[in-house]
């Protein structure tokens, strides 16, 4: 024992780290903040550590070359002992890290922790959030499969819309004129060197600031923050009703981090690694690229925005969001901290959560995408065929063979891009149906050039039969009134 302490002293004499470490461990925190609400920041850091370790392990096998990356992922999944597990840990770790970072941000926002004197801690937090998102996107690219390939194309298309600078930005992003070897190499450099290096530096600063300024006290309704006396009050609070960080606060951090690591391992074990999907061969066009979970909301937004609003929203929206987040601690650096007296803050969180949740949920169904194989693979339920005349059945065949089914559903089967046609005859008269089929309109292509008169007649005859049995089909009101006169 004495020998160990002697060796320890030898090192400390040279490193001079013992005193600051002891000071950090013993620094007083407000008694109320030794709480389960204050564990998310440390958990995010723990998962970041897991990502560093598993990332290095993956880099032992992964080949960052457009021609080889996909094969090396297969080797990791199927040949290297437990390679699949390390990939799964890294993939699930990424999802957990983003989720925890977001929860941490919401907690900090609702507890008013961004107010004086912790404005810069918040701003660094925003930078860390952007970098975590950057890691998620670049990581998705390194899983070099079909989704990665076409996802890069989407990224390039968005970048190309920047006025004037668009085309050079695309080439900088891709490292050349097309998505190819240089593209993967530069995303590898970003994902493995640039962003992690910056992340480590900024996480260090972020934590240093938390230690130097002290952890945010538990917000009490009515206890207002004022620049003039906050520091003094905080000092009094920690020294009259404070407890040392170790062990009072840290044990909860440790337990939660452990639970998170175990959860990641459980997900990795149970669900396995993410992909890779098909080979990144642009000639394989039978694909429907989808982004990873945390970018699904963006996929929905890009599908649902009116075309003329898309570019402004894409280019200006993120800038506005960023300015709002960065300006927040300056706009409301003082005053009430408790969420119980900040209804707008609570509403803002709820609104954002509901919006992102709705978009994500929509994107997991993607009703705006045509079902590309419906014309060959989707059935027309028999109730829409039974008892029909030969011409009407011929119309059902036209409906199927001309890809109508790709965008229109019958009995919940088929695409949802256009309206369901289960009861279309109740909504449109015969003439309106003919017009809609031939001329298109709304969001439907005109089929005039691709249907013979006989096909059109058969198709509309079939569509005319699509109404619930007790409900009459739509009538032309002008014809009826004419008949009565």
């Amino acid at each position: 024992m004495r020998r160990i302490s002697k060796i320890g002293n030898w090192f400390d004499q040279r490193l001079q780290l013992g005193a600051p470490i002891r000071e950090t461990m013993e620094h007083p925190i407000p008694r109320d903040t030794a709480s389960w609400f204050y564990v998310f920041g440390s958990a995010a850091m723990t998962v970041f550590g897991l990502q560093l370790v598993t990332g290095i392990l993956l880099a032992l096998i992964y080949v960052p070359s457009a021609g080889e990356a996909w094969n090396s992922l297969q080797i990791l999944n199927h040949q290297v002992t437990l390679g699949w597990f390390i990939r799964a840990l890294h993939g699930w770790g990424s999802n957990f890290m983003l989720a925890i970072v977001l929860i941490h941000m919401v907690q900090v926002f609702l507890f008013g922790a961004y107010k004086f004197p912790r404005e810069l801690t918040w701003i660094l937090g925003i930078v860390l959030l952007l970098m975590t998102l950057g890691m998620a996107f670049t990581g998705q690219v390194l899983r070099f499969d079909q989704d990665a390939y076409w996802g890069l194309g989407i990224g390039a298309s968005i970048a190309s819309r920047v006025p004037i600078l668009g085309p050079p930005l695309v080439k900088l992003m891709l490292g050349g004129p097309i998505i190819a070897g240089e593209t993967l190499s530069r995303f590898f450099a970003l994902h493995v060197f640039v962003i992690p290096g910056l992340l480590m530096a900024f996480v260090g600063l972020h934590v240093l600031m938390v230690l130097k300024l002290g952890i945010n006290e538990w917000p009490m309704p009515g206890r207002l923050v004022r620049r003039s006396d906050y520091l003094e009050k905080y000092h009094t609070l920690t020294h009259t009703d404070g407890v040392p960080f170790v062990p009072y606060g840290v044990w909860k951090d440790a337990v939660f981090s452990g639970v998170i690591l175990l959860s990641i391992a459980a997900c990795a074990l149970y669900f396995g690694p993410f992909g890779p999907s098909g080979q990144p061969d642009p000639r394989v066009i039978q694909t429907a690229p989808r982004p990873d979970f945390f970018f699904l909301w963006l996929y929905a937004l890009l599908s649902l925005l009116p075309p003329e609003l898309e570019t402004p929203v894409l280019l200006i929206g993120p800038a506005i969001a960023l300015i709002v987040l960065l300006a927040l601690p300056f706009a409301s650096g003082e005053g009430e901290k408790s969420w119980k007296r900040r209804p707008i803050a609570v509403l803002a969180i709820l609104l954002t959560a509901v919006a992102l949740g709705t978009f994500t949920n929509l994107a997991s169904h993607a009703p705006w995408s045509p079902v590309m194989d419906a014309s060959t693979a989707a059935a027309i339920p028999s109730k829409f065929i039974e008892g029909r005349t030969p011409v009407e059945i011929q119309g059902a065949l036209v409906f199927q063979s001309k890809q109508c089914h790709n965008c229109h559903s019958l009995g919940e089967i088929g695409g949802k891009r256009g309206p369901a046609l289960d009861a279309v005859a109740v909504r449109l008269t015969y003439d309106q149906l003919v017009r809609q089929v031939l001329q298109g309109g709304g969001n439907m292509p005109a089929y005039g050039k691709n249907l013979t008169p006989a096909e059109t007649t058969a198709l509309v005859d079939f569509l005319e039969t699509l109404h619930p049995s007790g409900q009459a089909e739509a009538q032309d009101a002008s014809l009826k009134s004419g008949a009565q006169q």
Partner: protein
Amino acid sequence: MSVPSGLSRREMFLKVAMLFNGIVGVVLGVPIVRYLLSPVTRGVKPGYDRWISLGGVDQFPSGQTRLATYRNPVANASDGETADIPCWVRHIDADNFQVFAINCAHLGCPVRWFPQSGLFMCPCHGGVYYQDGSRASGPPERGLFEYPFKIVDGNLHIRAGELPTPGSPIATRGSLITIDLKRPPCAG
């Protein structure tokens, strides 16, 4: 002798040292920036696009639209299959062709051709185009990107080399199709 005000010998040395390192910074910085910008500068003159053969005209029957592929003119061995680029070739009649980029004009997903309905459909956000590449419906703001083509010795050549995006040369060459925003709402 009067003492110069403000600037001591040591301070002057520090300033000279800083100036010196500033020059060193520029000497190192210029090549680094040029290296980083090379994907942009390499393509300025003569550009990335080249004439490439898609093979004999007889591979593309008149009146049909078929998928063709070419090896990108700017490609390295390490690019693997990512440099094999597909495109849609529409043989209208005789020497009339249209060669469309595979990439949807919206956000670049691969469009698929459906000969029965004469439509290109995009699996991502639901863009649809007619057989001549013009916009039919969905989020795209314009028709499909079209490669310039020529026929040399019975072979179909197209000018390609750069990923077609709304900002690339291929997009500015063709005439833009404007969307009529005052159309009546969906009749369905």
